[in-house]
């Protein structure tokens, strides 16, 4: 059985169907990318896994337990941590508080001090800014804080939604390097990205989404060479 298994789910936003009969799997220890243009349903997929949306049919299971249609706070208890698009830091709280609140769940809260050190090692910049309000951080720092907050939860699987969004290339590189590091330390990563090159090159496997359906899948390297990717993006 797979670590995370999504089986033929259909998801609606109100009356609008966004995901069509979608299936995919993530194995333990893998880095899996989901790439695709805007509106392809990538974020919706993550939101469905983390319980913010419920599929109307199909099943999501994690470590052989059915997890779909459970409240988001329950999903966190399973060890599935979602770092949402646009960082969504708690703007009026300090960086450190944001990190601490990441460790709200029972598994993580006993190890706060230790994990926070790890996060600071990964992103030394956060250490410098720990007492600043999150709203005063730059875009790159906010992204670091958001990922750091995800790590604080001791995820079994970390789901990142567009971590490179709006970042300058130089910062983007830092972020991707950090993601690689997180994966190397043993956390399974499910990455939703627009930046095909960076995400595919650090992923073990990847899925290409179009219109709420998987149109391609394969290893990161394979897909990187696939000309269809460029077509999907540039429409040629």
């Amino acid at each position, binding site marked *: 059985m797979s670590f995370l298994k999504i089986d033929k789910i259909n998801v609606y936003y109100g009356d609008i169907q966004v995901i069509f009969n979608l299936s995919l799997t993530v194995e333990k220890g893998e880095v899996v990318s989901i790439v695709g243009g805007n509106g392809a349903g990538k974020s919706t997929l993550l939101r469905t896994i983390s*319980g913010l949306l419920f599929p109307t049919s199909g099943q999501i299971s994690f470590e052989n337990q059915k997890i779909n249609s459970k*409240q988001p*706070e329950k999903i966190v*208890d399973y060890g599935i941590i979602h770092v*949402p698009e646009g960082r969504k830091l708690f703007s*009026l709280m300090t960086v450190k508080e944001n990190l601490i609140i*990441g460790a*709200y769940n029972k598994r993580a809260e006993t190890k706060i001090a230790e994990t926070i050190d790890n996060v600071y090692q990964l992103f030394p910049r956060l250490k410098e800014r720990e007492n600043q309000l999150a709203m005063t951080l730059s875009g790159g720092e906010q992204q670091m804080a958001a990922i750091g907050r995800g790590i604080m939860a001791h995820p079994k699987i970390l789901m990142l939604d567009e971590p490179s969004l709006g970042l300058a290339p130089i910062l983007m590189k830092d972020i991707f390097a950090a993601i690689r590091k997180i994966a190397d330390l043993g956390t399974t990563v499910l990455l939703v990205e627009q930046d095909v090159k960076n995400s595919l090159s650090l992923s073990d496997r990847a899925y290409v989404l179009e219109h709420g359906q998987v149109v391609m899948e394969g290893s990161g390297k394979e897909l990187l060479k696939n000309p269809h990717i460029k077509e999907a993006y540039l429409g040629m």
Partner: protein
Amino acid sequence: MIYLIEDIINGILMGSIYGLTALGLTVIFGVLKVINFAHGSLLMVGMYVAYWIITATGIHPYIALFIAAPIMFFFGYYLQDIIIKPIFKAEKNVREPITVIIVTTGLWYILDNLTLLIFGPQYRSIQDNALKGAMLEIGEIFISVPKLCGAITAVITALAIYLFFQKTKTGRAVRATSIDRETASLMGINQYKIYNIAFGIGTAAAGIAAVTLVPFYNIFPTVGVLFDIKGFIIVVLGGLGSILGAMLGGIIIGLIESVGPQFMSSTWTEAIVYGLFLLVLFIKPSGLFGIKQDW
């Protein structure tokens, strides 16, 4: 001059107590984003709870506080859980569900009149309490001891709630939920439980305010109404959701009420309070200490 000092002291003391009565309102608004029109009624319930504890056991009012506050916490906790939560679930995507205003107003009618039905319309006050009528006399200046104790309690309570929000795990979760409830749930925070807790804290604050009032105030079923509108004005003046704002808003009102009558008829101070309220609202709609947010 000495009169002015006396009035200012009284204004600050009574104002702090007003701040305390409004504290729960601001906490509940800050987290749930609803105006709790039943807040005055919760204060009234708190006064009855304190009254019965003190008259039944004969203990010092401020010891009763440690019994009344937890009772009120659970009262608020389950009130939100049973009556208000279903509305939140039904109106998930509405930031400020107007329906909750109606529900809390319904609660107000129910609580006030249930009390009337059960306990009758009599006015009660606790005769044998250690604080009744105690006055501190410094030269020509009189300071009411129960008000002083109330003001100190108000400051301690505000500080305690502030520290709870700043320093504890649950407090941080409450703040996180108030900033962004969806992302908070991604941290593993059950927002509805947080709402219960916030409502519980708000109610407990009303309970504490009630305990500080009973040594010198009378208790009757509609007593909450007297504090209701005042509470709204205080929290908007100070900034909805701000603890410091509630305390300072309370003190401003206390000062107007205390100093104003020396220059005019005391019925006019009410009008001044409304005038100031509107003025602040126009100049700085988020209140004196509110954070500018798109409510």
